[in-house]
């Protein structure tokens, strides 16, 4: 049945893209609007408040900065995973995609420590508008990290079987799209970090 659908691995001539490439960008467009609503919330609540904490008063800036470096590095390993597939180097692909998943895990572990420390000091979403938006935005972002790790982990595990069953192009395609999602997750954090930690 799927054989009836064209442009899965080959791009359509006049648009220059595959179906999944357009689809992932459209999905990212909707995610821009989703996070946009939360950024709008942050702006309205902060500018409407009498007092709003400076980021460093509540957050552990070095820990947040570390997480930023972790995610940026994971973006590099992700794009290198794709580049390895373009170069048809399956071994390098495995190393890089594995590194991406692990770095995602490191991010989540650091987030776990940050959240635990807050709860230990009785700082919860219900405590203030700042904490409400902090927990909600970083929580939603973390859910995206988990989802991305799931997708990347799936390719880590199944990469070899794609290769051996003659579906290389499909794998390259899918990893590229998973990469776009992962870069977006990094991109959101690039804004979240200064907004919540440094202002």
């Amino acid at each position, binding site marked *: *049945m799927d*054989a009836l659908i064209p442009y899965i691995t080959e791009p359509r001539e006049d*648009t220059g893209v595959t*179906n999944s490439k357009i689809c992932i960008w459209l999905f990212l467009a909707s995610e821009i609007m*989703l996070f946009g*609503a939360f950024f709008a919330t942050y702006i309205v609540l902060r500018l409407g408040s009498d007092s709003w904490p400076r980021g460093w008063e509540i957050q552990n800036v070095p820990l947040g900065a570390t997480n930023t470096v972790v995610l940026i590095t994971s973006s590099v390993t992700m794009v290198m995973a794709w580049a390895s597939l373009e170069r048809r180097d399956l071994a390098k692909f495995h190393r890089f995609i594995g590194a991406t998943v692990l770095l995602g895990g490191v991010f989540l572990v650091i987030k776990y420590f940050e959240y635990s420390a807050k709860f230990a000091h009785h700082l919860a979403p219900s405590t203030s508008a700042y904490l*409400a938006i902090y927990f909600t935005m970083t929580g939603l972002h973390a859910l995206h990290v988990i989802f991305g790790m799931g997708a990347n982990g799936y390719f880590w595990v199944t990469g070899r079987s794609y290769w051996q069953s003659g579906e290389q192009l499909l794998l390259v395609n899918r990893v590229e799209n998973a990469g776009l999602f992962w870069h977006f997750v990094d991109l959101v954090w690039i804004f979240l970090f200064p907004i919540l930690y440094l202002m």
Partner: protein
Amino acid sequence: MDGRHQGGQAAKTAEHGSHVEHHEEIGFWRRYVFSTDHKVIGIQYTVTGLFFLFFGFCLMMILRWQLAYPGMPIPLIGSWLGDSRAPGGVMLPEFYNELGAMHGTIMVFLGVVPIGVGGFGNFVLPLQIGAADMAFPKINMFSYQFFVLGGLVMLLSFLLPGGAAQSGWTSYSPLADINPGQTAWGFGMVLIITSSLLGALNFITTTIQLRAKGMSFWRFPFFVWAQFVTAFLLLLAFPPLEAATVMQIMDRLAGTSFFLPAGLVVSGQQMLNSGGGNPLLWQHLFWFLAHPEVYVLILPALGIVAEVIANNTRKPLFGYTAMVYSLIFLGFMSFIVWAHHMFITGMGSGMATFFQTTTMIISIPSVVILASLLLSLWGGSIRFNTPMLFALAFLPMFGIGGLTGLPLGLSAPDIHLHDTYYVIAHFHYVVAPGTIFAFFAGLYFWYPKATGRRMNETLGNVHFWGSVIGMNGVFMPMFWIGLAGVSRRLYDGGATYDFGPEVASLTAFSSWSAWFLGISQLPFIANFFWSLRHGEVVDRNPWQSTTVEWQAPSPPPHGNFDRAPVIYRGPYDYSPPGYAVDFVPQTQEA
């Protein structure tokens, strides 16, 4: 729907890729329940959507008893509702609010959008662009399943201890942060929004990528353009409401104060939340979706009406190019008008001017489209079959709805009219004798393609006249009721106010018209099911139409076309000079 005997033939002659033999039995569940075929999914969406439309209508028919005869026990079913909803058969105010809120929610999100986009869009769009299916058939199936799940959550919420959501379909905070039923509403909305987002991804990708050879954008039927723009509205406008819903759920479950200011007193008790929230923020995020949402409600309808009119006037649509540009401009503008729903929230004159201006500007493309449809009738050989009757009635009904929106879009008159029955009349005219009439036109029109049989014309005419009279009977009086000063959502319809007595007879008339309108739907329901077995059998193109879906068998098999279509001309080559027949299909070369 039964593609079994056509499947093998179609599969053998399919051109692209390797084909799949359909001799193997897929089994009932994979064929009819867990199908990835866009036609099956389209029918699933339509039937499920029609069920929800009927359910939402029933909620209103019950509600309107209380408006017509405040404080009187509901006849027939009053005793079934139980003491928590209607002790002694008299509706409680809380139950009245549930009926109102869920009527709106169900009609908009579980009725109209699933039928217009999920139903008509899914079934017709791939066929009209000459594709074998949607780009992502499995995602299509998931989008239907999310819709059903969301619908179930909404239905089951009536059984919750405090009842279903009862804070209007608009769920304004702070009330929605503390009222019963809202958490379920929120979860239901998240599921429904997910369904729409998945659908939007599919529609846009399919339209851009899977159109047949020769099907350029300017050869699309207007219906395809309408669905394409609608998909963008869904894609970009729904996420902010999803975000807002998550925040409202967090206010309820996690004790946050996104939308709650400090110092609220509820039932004499001081609330202990942190405060710092803004109730207007909810309104902004809600209406950021809900305004484009009303264009999601009308655009597919405009698409359907355009197809039915072109076909039944036997001439090309007037102003097709202007209509398409208007559609795109309308889609864009729809994102910057939303706060005309918020004129009385204390907005200053600067922003009020901004939103009033954009709202006036957006009426221009609407008028261009409506005028083009009207002008398309001029000089046509009009066939008055049932789809055309509904399409023709749509035009003045949508006209009334649109024109009565103008005083609401201007901030000064809106001060008097906001939240009155005038508003209810305005938007129902656009959606009820507007969109729903268009849906009826589309159902009668495409029923032969989906089933291989026609619906009965006599029953169709009875359905039509009953509906036209019923719709106008329900909603026309509401303009007067609203101008008299009656607010919406009042438990007694305004009976205890000064203006109460003068509008009581109008209110009762409206209710009786609603019950008459309900009865008028019975011929349609009967016709729908009876014709499945006994309707006149038709071939591929019973309406002698130019668009590509009529080149496929009725019903089309899996994969749709015997051969991948090639497109040689525009969508409305009706009555071209020099031809013996009064139409040339898009797939015909010479």
